[in-house]
């Protein structure tokens, strides 16, 4: 593979990104090759040292924000032919629901993760606040002459508060873990788009 083929290859794998982004990347890699060739490497060796076109494209695409990446991948790389447009329109009842449901699945995964986080937080918060209120109510009851029932209330409140305090640390790490899972999920989606682009 020579210099020009290599640069063309990179360009093709980046198609869909803005022209400015592509030009900037190409200028950079052109300079990189020239500098290494000036240093005494052959064209082939320089290309190997800089990284394969796939590596170059993957690094750039993985660093591109998700929305930009999606539009770059979805955008057709050439003008659509008339029959393709007809097919696209006729097929709309099919592909719109499919795309919509894929989107809905991704959204619900995120919703489930977030509601789990919220539940965990609510349990800890609820038991601490609830326990505290029960203790206060018990003390007031005791002053008002509530007797055994008021004492039981204080005891119950203390137990619940204790449970809440015990649960705090494990729940905190659970929430952090769920949050990380969410991030990994987004990364995975991104990877799907990049893989498709690089293979093409």
């Amino acid at each position, binding site marked *: 593979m020579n210099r020009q083929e290599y640069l063309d290859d990179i360009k093709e794998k980046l198609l869909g990104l803005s022209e400015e982004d592509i030009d900037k990347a190409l200028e950079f*890699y052109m300079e990189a090759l020239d500098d290494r060739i000036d240093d005494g490497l052959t064209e082939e060796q320089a290309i190997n040292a800089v*990284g394969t076109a796939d590596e170059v494209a993957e690094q*750039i695409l993985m660093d591109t924000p998700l929305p930009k990446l999606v539009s770059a991948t979805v955008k057709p790389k050439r003008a659509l032919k008339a029959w393709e447009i007809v097919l696209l329109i006729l097929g709309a009842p099919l592909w719109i629901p499919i795309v919509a449901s894929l989107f809905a699945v991704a959204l619900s995964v995120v919703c489930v993760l977030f509601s789990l986080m919220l539940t965990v937080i609510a349990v800890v918060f609820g038991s601490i606040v609830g326990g505290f209120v029960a203790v206060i109510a018990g003390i007031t009851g005791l002053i008002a002459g509530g007797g055994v029932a008021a004492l039981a209330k204080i005891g119950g409140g203390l137990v619940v508060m204790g449970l809440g305090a015990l649960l705090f640390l494990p729940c905190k790490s659970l929430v952090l873990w769920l949050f990380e899972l969410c991030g990994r999920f987004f990364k995975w989606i991104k990877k799907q788009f990049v893989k498709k682009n690089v293979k093409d």
Partner: protein
Amino acid sequence: MDVQLKRGLLEILVLAAIKNDDSYGYKIIKDIKPYLSISESTLYPILKRLEEAGCLTVRSEEYNGRLRKYYSITKNGKQRIEDFKNEWKEIMDIYEYVAREEQ
């Protein structure tokens, strides 16, 4: 080395490579090679990220009849290096404690 950690360290290494004199892609790679070995395909996104974060500026200059991009550090970039140094002072203190002689 942990991927996330390497990524962060590379950004600082690149800033350190241009902190005294402006530099260009291939020279940056050669300068940081003794510490972390990378290729242009890794360097490019890092430079782009640093530029977007306002840590460096880029200008093109002619060299040998072709264009070469030179990178200069900004005030923001210098601040990033200072932050890094302060953060690692804390980490080194922790290291001293963790690695102290067993008794």
